[in-house]
């Protein structure tokens, strides 16, 4: 009940924030452009006929969703702490656990709402163009899981940060690190230091951005060559379903573990 009230307040607050509309706008604009102009012969890229547009959407999500989730969740606790709103809230009959849960639900719901607006517009155009709804629904579902993982990570940072500015700088650095340590960064490390192939594969699954990318390429039944060497090795070892399951598990684990760590940091503060 309390967490729900806090979540509702969080959603209201988020919907009034500029980033909510920016996020939705990027997805509406990006999705529509990709659907209208991206659905051409795509044999060169190795996707199915509608796959190019979906791959574009996936790339869009890969860059935008983690950043939006991190920025909004990073500010959620540290920002309230800075303005005195958190102290006042905690002086009410609420527990720190409820406040943390409410913040998580509120930010996640707002991010998901902006994604639904964006993907909804894309889906409508896609339906008119004859693209099956299932791939778009799967893309939305995985994007939501990706967002949830990064909301947990951002709230963890926020719980440990004394100011909004500090939280924002940390989450921005994390975002860059996750992107940089994607396939290209890993390949460079692999070549430079001769890392074992197993490490490369495990890291591909541990990095939530890379896990999302691999899961989506596998879901879209794209050419395995697009997976990169680590992804190709993983699909060889685990199979397509196994790769999707492992990547989903990685994202779920990030969501749960970062949530647990953030809640622990927040509730142990006295």
């Amino acid at each position, binding site marked *: 009940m309390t967490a729900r009230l806090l979540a509702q307040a969080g959603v*209201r607050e988020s919907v009034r924030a500029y980033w909510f509309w920016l996020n939705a706008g990027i997805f509406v604009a990006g999705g529509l452009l990709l659907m209208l102009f991206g659905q051409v012969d795509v044999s060169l890229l190795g996707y199915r006929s509608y796959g190019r547009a979906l791959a574009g959407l996936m790339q869009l999500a890969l860059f935008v969703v983690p950043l939006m989730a991190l920025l909004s969740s990073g500010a959620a606790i540290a920002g309230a702490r800075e303005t*005195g709103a958190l*102290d*006042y809230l905690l002086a*009410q*009959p*609420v*527990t720190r656990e409820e406040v943390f849960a409410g913040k998580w639900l509120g930010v996640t719901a707002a991010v998901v709402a902006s994604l639904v607006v964006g993907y909804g517009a894309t889906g409508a155009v896609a339906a008119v163009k004859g693209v099956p709804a299932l791939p778009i629904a799967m893309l939305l579902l995985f994007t939501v899981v990706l967002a949830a993982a990064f909301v947990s990570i951002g709230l963890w940072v926020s719980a440990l940060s004394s100011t909004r500015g500090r939280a924002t700088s940390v989450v921005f650095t994390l975002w860059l690190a996750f992107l940089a340590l994607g396939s290209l960064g890993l390949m460079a490390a692999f070549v430079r230091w001769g890392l074992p192939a197993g490490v490369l594969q495990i890291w591909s699954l541990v990095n939530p951005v890379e896990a999302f990318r691999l899961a989506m390429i596998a879901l879209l039944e794209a050419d395995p060559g697009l997976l990169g060497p680590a992804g190709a090795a993983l699909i060889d070892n685990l199979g397509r379903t196994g790769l999707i399951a492992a990547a989903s598990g990685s994202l779920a684990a990030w969501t749960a573990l970062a949530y647990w760590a953030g809640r622990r940091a927040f509730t142990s503060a006295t």
Partner: protein
Amino acid sequence: MITGVGLGKSYGEQRVFGDLDFHIEAGERVALLGLNGAGKTTLFRCLLALTDFEGELRVAGETVTPGRKEVRRRIGYVPQQAPLYDMTLTEFVAFFSALRGVAMDGPASTLAALGMPLEETGGKALNELSGGMVQKALLGLALGSGSSVLLLDEPTANLDPGARRDLFRRVREIAAETTLLFASHRLDEIELLADRVLVLHGGGLAFDGTLEELWRATDAAPRLWLSAPPHEVERVAAELRECPAVSDLRANGAGVEVDVRGDASLDLLLEVRQRGLPVTEFRTRPPSLEHVLDQLERHGDGSPAPVDASTADGGGS
């Protein structure tokens, strides 16, 4: 209503206070006096179960357990810093009423009694309201949600004198039956609102008694402020220096502030009349907090020691 036994709190190596024993009866209005950093806010955090502590605390029949929220249903809290929420006043009241599990009617009618009916001000964003209005909104929420204890943590710190007086007048009117504990480092505020004073100083409770008892225990007679026309201030000051009732005085362009010896305030005023001094207005002002705390420290061996008003001056509290 509020009882602390052996209450202590440290942050790591830093001891904030220790061995505090106090009891506040239902309906009492008690000021918690202390310099910045004395531990007033920390004591409030203990009462609100927001931090761990040593000893025992009971509020309105509930044992305070750090981290547990039950006791906060009984406590209304008004902080020093008005919290910034991106909400209208109506949304703010609705949200916090729901969190406290009460209907919105109570806070809304209290706000109306405070001169802020939601029908008129409810549509305004919180950040559009003045500091005084936000503090009134917090007060309305605290009192209108059925709290039996009201904690005010320097609620007027950021208000101008007019807004400060208005807020205290409203508190006196509306919170007549509520147990009140308010933190302050301003002695003039305490005079306006408190039945009793707890002085938190040097890591302990340095005084527990009424304001009159505090003045007597610390030889701190109130100061008198005498207004005079600007061109007469120097003459008034010079004549007052000759009065035996005056121990010290300070003049500025608008008048003279006088430290009076003992209970000689009336003697001084009679002397002003006899001398025909052109005094246009007089007011009493409380002694400075620094003087009071300094005197409390001197009661012991130089270190702050608990002073019981009943033994300090023969009175009781």
